Structures are given as C-alpha cells and as structure tokens.
C-alpha cells in the first residue's frame, strides 16, 4: 500500500495551500481532487453553464448527473436536487476548487468578526460564538496569503480594518466609469470608500500576467492567469517540489481508522472505462479540505465501530452551523454613461457598516458588482414592474443594460445549529456514497441585518444619482452556496466545536480540517482570504508536527 506523510482531500482554497506548505517543508503529500484539472479552454465562455449562471450545468463542476443532494424544504419534505438546481448550494469541483473561477475578492475579516458573541451577545436559539483565535493571531497569515498568491488593493484607505504590518504587493485595479457616481454618492453621505482588494494582478506578478479587463471574470477562468487561485500558485509550487502527487477525478470515499480508532489513511475511487477502481492509501496525517458541505459529509460517512456517528462527531457537532451569506443590496438606473465594459467590474466598496450599527448584530461590506453577461442580467437585474417580454422588455435591455448599478454585500449571518449538513443514507451518488442532506435555516436575526443593509444600499444609490431604485426583502432560508462555511467550527470546547484552533479534530492526533468548515462565524465579507490564511497557519502547524 502506498504511504504518505499527508493525504489532503480536496484541491480547493484550503487544500491547495496546505499541500503547498507541506510539500515545500519536505513532506510527502497526496492531494486528491474529485474534479478534473481544467484548462482555460475547458472552462470556456458558456453564458448558460457557468459557476455564475448555471441554467443547464456548470463550467467548474460538479457534473449535473450522478452528484445529487437531498434538501429539506420549508415544507419539511425531502427533495432530491441536482448541482445546478436551487437549494443544492454548489461551489465547485475541480483543481483549484472555487478559486478556479472565483471573483477573487480578497477580504480580511475585521478584529470584531472574531469576537461576535462577546460584542453582541448570543441571540436565543443561535450558536453565535467567538473564535478561539483573534485577528492578531491570523494577521501574519493574511499577509502571507496576500503576498504568496498576489493581491492588489489600497490598504491605507481601509480605515475600518484591523492593523497590518504590510500593505498589498500591488496597487489596486483601476477605477472604471461606474466608480464615479458611486464615489460621488458616498462622499455626499460622508461615507468612506476604497477599492476592493482582489487576488488579481494589477501588474505582472510572480511570472503571471496582469489583468487585461476582459468581461467574463467571475464564474470564468482568466485568459492571462492574472486571477490567482490555488491552481496557478500553491498547487504548482507543491508539484514542483517533487513531494506532492496530485490525483484529479479521484473521489475520496472514506477516512480509514484502525481498531483503536486512529486515522490511518483514506480510500478513494476512480472511474475507469465505466467501472470503479478503489484505492486505499496510508498516511500519517489526513487533512479534510473538501469544502464546508462535502467535508462534513466525508467525516460523517467515515463512521466505524469506534466512531459510530462519524469522525469528530462525538458531540453531534459535525455539519451544524452551516453558513454562507445573504447578499443584501439594491439596484438603480443612472442616467449618465456608466458602462465601459472593463472587467472584472468590482471597483468600489465601503466597510462603514460592518459593525457599530444600532439595533443589529454586525453588518456587511457593500460593493458594486462584477460585469454580467446579458443573459445573466436578464435573469437577475430587471425591475419587477418591467414586463419581461414584448417591446417593453426588449427596450429595457437595450436602454438599461449599461445604465443599471447594483450595490450589495455579504451579510454576516447569525449561525443556527439546526442549519446543518447530514448524510442521506437512502440516496447515493454515482460512486455509491451516501449524499449530503441539507436542512434548517440560518438564525432569524440574520434578516434584520439584511434589511438594514438593503436600506444602506438604497441610500447609497439615491445619493449617487439613481433615478429608479429597487430591491427585495429576504426571506429566511438555509445558506451555504459559494460562501459555505461553519460545519466543523474551531473551538476550545469539544462539546461545542469540532476542531481545535489549528483545525485538528478533537480526540484525534492526526486528523485535520482545512477549509471554510472551520469558520466559527463567516464575517461580513467574502470568505476566501480567511480560509487561505487559516490554511497557511494550519499547514505550518501540521508541517512542524510531522517533523
């Protein structure tokens, strides 16, 4: 049987970074990824099957056949859904995971985001908690993520953020036409704004090109490798050491344990000529980095006599507290010319309302949006009172595709232990593995935050010259999706958390989690930079433990 120092399950944001850190420290690593290693051409430019508008499928996986999930609806009934259907809460399945096609917004959380329970108290029925580490503990690793992958931004202008030792390695992406009214509006309101930090090269960096401003950024791959994911940074670095073996299209079936309950390796499955080949490997350490939903599923599916409820699940915590982000915002028509078609399209943000808002818990960052392909715009961006067909619907597309502004932000969710991932033993994927079952909702206090942020978005658009302004209220639902997090939260108390502050699963010496699952709370920001910073930190810790 093949033997490694570490097997890492999932080559996404977290897994890719741990692979790089361990391989460069000289450890033998196996990196298993269920999806393929996609070239730029494989991702393509399909406007109906992207990770942003997935009407008939995705461009970064998983395939819509053979990978169902079970979702419990508001009616309490179980529904089987495919990856592109509502409720599935997909992120991606390929080398790089979500970072292969993401928008690359690279936000640090604020110091307050690690202390939500202390700052705001715990609403009844919620599992709001402090992190077992502070912003200061994570700060050096945020810096590492920003410099090792490559990040553009204007640190000096981010006055509401925590202290930092070092700025960004690259200046921000240029402003575009639509920045102008939004900047003016914010100034009129007395709000502070700044460019959006992105893991995108504003100038050539580390041998990769600069952004050329194409107009299919989020949901697509980058033509100049200016968008930095793990697939073009830490994973190639890991491979170039000769210490890391990457196997794509390899589905990890279970984590293996011995008679005493110790983790010994994993079993994975590969599809070959229509048949399944099963491989078992041994390793000193197993790192689970399959994304918040699939990591919980894998731990739960790895039950044994010693661990009848799954690994790390002695206290029924694995899979609970599933969080993502409600996106709260508003749209407006602006009469001036605001379109120049230069991507990525995210140009201005305010973090004025992430904390300190009377009557609500936390808040959100607000920003303008990525450019949208016309059919995506048709689906998401028409006002409810405009007919979607006939001359009027067509005229709206013609006159307002390039005059519609959208500002929105990721609302910091209030976690609920009943918003959770379980497994559905009666429904299996194409490998015969029981699938994830999603049920519950986030805590209702999230709605108050969403409503507060919707009002701020409208206010900003009004001050920016918006003539017609529209938005929609949120209703309570389960959240996860591309910002999924929280299902194996870190903590000091094994009864209320799954891992310790380094991502080590309680009661195991050699089983780690390194992905969005670890987040105790998910910030009012896109989560990936925090996932990466934690992965650098855990990776360093695991490397030391292995030495």
């Amino acid at each position, binding site marked *: 049987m093949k033997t490694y120092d570490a097997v890492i399950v999932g080559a996404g944001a977290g897994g890719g970074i741990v692979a790089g850190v361990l391989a460069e420290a000289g450890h033998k690593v196996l990196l298993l990824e269920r999806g393929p290693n996609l070239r730029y051409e494989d991702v393509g430019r399909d406007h*109906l099957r992207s990770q942003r508008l997935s009407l008939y499928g995705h461009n970064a996986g998983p395939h819509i056949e053979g990978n169902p999930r079970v979702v419990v609806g508001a009616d309490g009934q179980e529904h089987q859904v495919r990856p592109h259907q509502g409720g599935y809460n997909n992120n991606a399945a390929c080398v790089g995971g979500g970072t292969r096609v993401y928008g690359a917004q690279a936000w640090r959380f604020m110091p307050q985001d690690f202390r939500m329970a202390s700052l705001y108290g715990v609403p009844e029925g919620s599992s709001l908690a402090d992190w077992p580490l502070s912003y200061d503990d994570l700060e050096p690793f945020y810096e590492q993520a920003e410099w090792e992958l490559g990040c553009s931004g204007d640190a000096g202008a981010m006055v509401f953020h925590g202290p930092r030792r070092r700025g960004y390695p690259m200046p921000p992406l240029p402003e575009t036409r639509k920045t102008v009214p939004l900047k003016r509006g914010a100034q009129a309101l007395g709000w502070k704004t700044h460019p959006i930090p992105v893991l995108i090269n504003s100038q050539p960096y580390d041998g990769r090109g600069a952004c050329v401003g*194409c107009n299919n950024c989020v949901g697509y791959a980058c033509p100049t490798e200016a968008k930095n994911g793990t697939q073009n940074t830490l994973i190639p670095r890991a491979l170039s050491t000769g210490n890391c073996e990457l196997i794509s299209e390899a589905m990890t079936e279970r984590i293996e344990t011995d008679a005493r309950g110790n983790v010994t390796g994993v079993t994975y499955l590969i599809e070959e000529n229509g048949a399944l080949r099963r491989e078992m490997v041994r390793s000193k350490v197993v790192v689970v980095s399959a994304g918040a939903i699939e990591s919980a599923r894998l731990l739960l599916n790895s039950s044994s006599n010693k661990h009848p409820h799954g690994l790390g699940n002695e206290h029924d915590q694995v899979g609970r507290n599933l969080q993502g982000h409600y996106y709260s915002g508003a749209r407006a028509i602006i009469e001036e010319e605001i*379109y120049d*078609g*230069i991507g990525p399209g995210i140009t201005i943000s305010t973090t004025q309302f992430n904390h300190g808002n009377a009557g609500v818990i936390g808040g959100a960052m607000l920003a303008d949006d990525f450019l949208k*392909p016309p*059919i995506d715009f048709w689906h998401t961006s028409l006002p409810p009172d405009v007919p*979607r067909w006939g*001359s009027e619907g*067509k005229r709206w597309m013609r006159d307002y595709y390039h005059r519609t502004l959208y500002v929105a932000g990721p609302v910091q969710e209030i976690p609920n232990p009943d918003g959770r991932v379980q497994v559905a033993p009666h429904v299996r994927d194409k490998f015969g593995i029981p699938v994830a079952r999603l049920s519950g909702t986030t805590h209702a206090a999230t709605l108050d935050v969403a409503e507060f942020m919707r009002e701020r978005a409208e206010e900003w658009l009004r001050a920016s010259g918006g003539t017609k302004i529209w938005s929609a209220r949120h209703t309570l639902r389960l959240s996860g999706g591309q910002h999924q997090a929280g299902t194996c939260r870190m903590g000091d108390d094994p009864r209320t958390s799954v891992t310790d502050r380094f991502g080590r699963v309680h009661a195991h010496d050699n089983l780690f989690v390194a992905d969005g699952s670890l987040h105790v709370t998910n910030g009012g920001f896109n989560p990936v930079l925090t996932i990466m910073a934690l992965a650098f930190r855990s990776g360093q810790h695991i490397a030391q433990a292995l030495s």
Partner: protein
Amino acid sequence: MILNSSLQSTLQAAANRIIPADDYPNAWEGGVGFYLERQFATDLSRSVPAYEAGLAALEAEARIHFDAPFVTLLEAQQDELLRRVEAGEVQTEWSVPPRRFFAMLVQHVAEGYYCDPMNLGNVGLRSWQMVGFVPRCD
C-alpha cells in the same frame, strides 16, 4: 425541429412577440430557433412534451377567441392571447399550467436571444450589439 411543423410555426410566431423586431432582429431572426432546436434534443428534451401541450393549447385558444390559427392573427391579437396565457386566463383545457408554460417560453426565448453564440442563438451577436456588450480579449 423536434416539434411538428405546425407547432413549430406557432412557436416561432409566439417567440417573435416575446422579442419583436425593431431596429434589432426579432427572436427567430436572432437565432432563437437554432438555440431551441439543439436544446430540445439535449438539455430540454424533458420539456418537449410540455412545449407540445402548451403550443397546441395556445392554438386552441386562438381558435376559440379569433377563429383562426395563431400565426395568422394580427400582432395585437397575438399579444392579447399571450397576455391571457401569462395571467392564466384560458378558456380551453390545458394539460400544462398556462402560466408556468408561458414563463418557461419567455425564459427560453430570452436565453436563445441573449446567450453566447456557442449556444447557437444570438446570430451575428446582434443582441449584444443592441445592449452594448462587447466581448473583450476572448
């Protein structure tokens, strides 16, 4: 096409009211037919029976209201019928829910009109020229 020629004519006429001609092409000239033809054979194969039922029912509505096939009606009459279907105010027996059928039809027509050309719709990129979307660096 997978639909029979009479249903296809109804589909074409209805699509051209959903996206009518002006300075820019109507739905069919914009490639919606090419788009739907491939979709009916692939992703939307399971929706073909619903299309057949809905288009046949739309024809039946045309006969009841105007005593003529849908394709021969004046544009204003076609629009009136489509508005009724959209509102679910139908006179004949529909085996697909009319409102759901209409929403599906509108969505698929828009897809064919505004999609990227690899999906066979959006002929000559005319809809993108109309809205001002210029693909860069592809």
